[in-house]
């Protein structure tokens, strides 16, 4: 240890980079940050942009991230990358959209929650499945 630290770049959909590196530059919210081994623990947001990685005995590597979080510990650094560009307004718009779709669907009916009906429906479906199962066993 001392001259290298471990870097993980992960997004919800996949693991993007994992390995020992010497030096790293990331586009933090307050400006670019360069990180060497034994950095103070830090947690910050990063903007969308390029992350520059220098691994031992290798050329510098550039990886694009669309924003996320940067977690720094003395010898482990993790970048939690977002899968898409996020902003508060954008998220808000998506939330409103999801809500609107649900409300539209709700408007078509005004009944109270009908558990009896729900359970009857489910029990029927289960019974059908059980019957199929039984028939299968008997058939073979």
């Amino acid at each position, binding site marked *: 240890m001392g001259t290298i630290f471990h870097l993980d770049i992960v997004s919800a959909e996949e693991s993007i980079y994992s390995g020992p590196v010497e030096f790293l530059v990331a586009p933090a919210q307050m400006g670019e940050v360069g990180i060497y081994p034994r950095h103070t623990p830090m947690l910050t947001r990063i903007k969308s942009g390029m992350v520059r990685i220098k691994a031992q005995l290798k050329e510098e590597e550039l990886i694009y991230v669309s924003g996320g*979080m940067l*977690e720094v510990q003395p010898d482990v650094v993790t970048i939690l990358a977002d899968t898409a560009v996020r902003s508060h307004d954008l998220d808000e718009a998506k939330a409103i959209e999801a809500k609107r779709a649900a409300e539209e669907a709700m408007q078509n009916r005004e009944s109270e929650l009908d*558990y009896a009906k729900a359970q009857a429906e489910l029990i029927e479906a289960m019974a059908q499945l059980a019957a199929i199962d039984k028939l299968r066993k008997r058939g073979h």
Partner: protein
Amino acid sequence: MAGSREIRNKIKSVKNTQKITRAMEMVAASKMRKAQDRMKKARPYGEKIRNVAAHMSRANTEYRHPFLVERDTVKRVGIIIVTSDKGLCGGLNTNVLRKAVTQMKKWQSEGEQIEVCCIGNKGLGFMSRIGAKVISQVIALGDTPDMTRLIGAVKVILDGYTKDQFDRVYVFYNRFINTMKQEPVMEQLLPLTDERMHSDESSNNKPKTTWDYIYEPEAQPVIDDVMVRYVEALIYQAVTENMASEQSARMVAMKAASDNAGSVIDELTLIYNKSRQAAITKELSEIVGGAAAV
């Protein structure tokens, strides 16, 4: 000869059905592998963000995120139900919906209000049919669950929680155990339970000394961001697990259907041959009888 043509037609139609179910079985098998892959790929992110969140919850004392605070009274419950978009996957959706309905009934008898967020067409259809209050929805996610599509629906629930609209949030989905076995589960999403956050610490990642991060620019917005992403990651994982479950359940169901079609064809062929032979025997005995009369 009466009946033999009908039997032949029937055999043909069952054979056609069998072709379809067999094709669906194979499609599901290949999709299942991809879905399992995706499920595994989502895990590192979930683990990393959990470690960060767990650490923060221990280290930072001046600001406690609302997601971590247990509430005394539970009056309103938000639930997220993850189901598949399409049917023909055995009892998968029925099982998870039954679990949800049983739980909802119990909550309602305790005087709690319930609002639902539906991910997946089947759950949405069911919930609106029975008259549950659906406050947000995402449907038609396709085979690759897209994080950006989930964010909106999830945000409605998370915002509801921060604005005290809900006191608790649960998620229902099918946990993928193996190809043959999927299990409907209910998990408490909010407030985040301690055991969930620190589940792996007893073994290897023992909490070291409590040091805190430097937060840039400020603690609160950064913590908020991490928490929201953590919860989203949990939901994303639930969705990927449910998709892997869906494909394997469909594969098993379609395999059963193809096998059934095979045995139906065997039975029908036997009946067909019997009736054909009966007809020949009858014709023969008629000829013999006729010849004897002459």
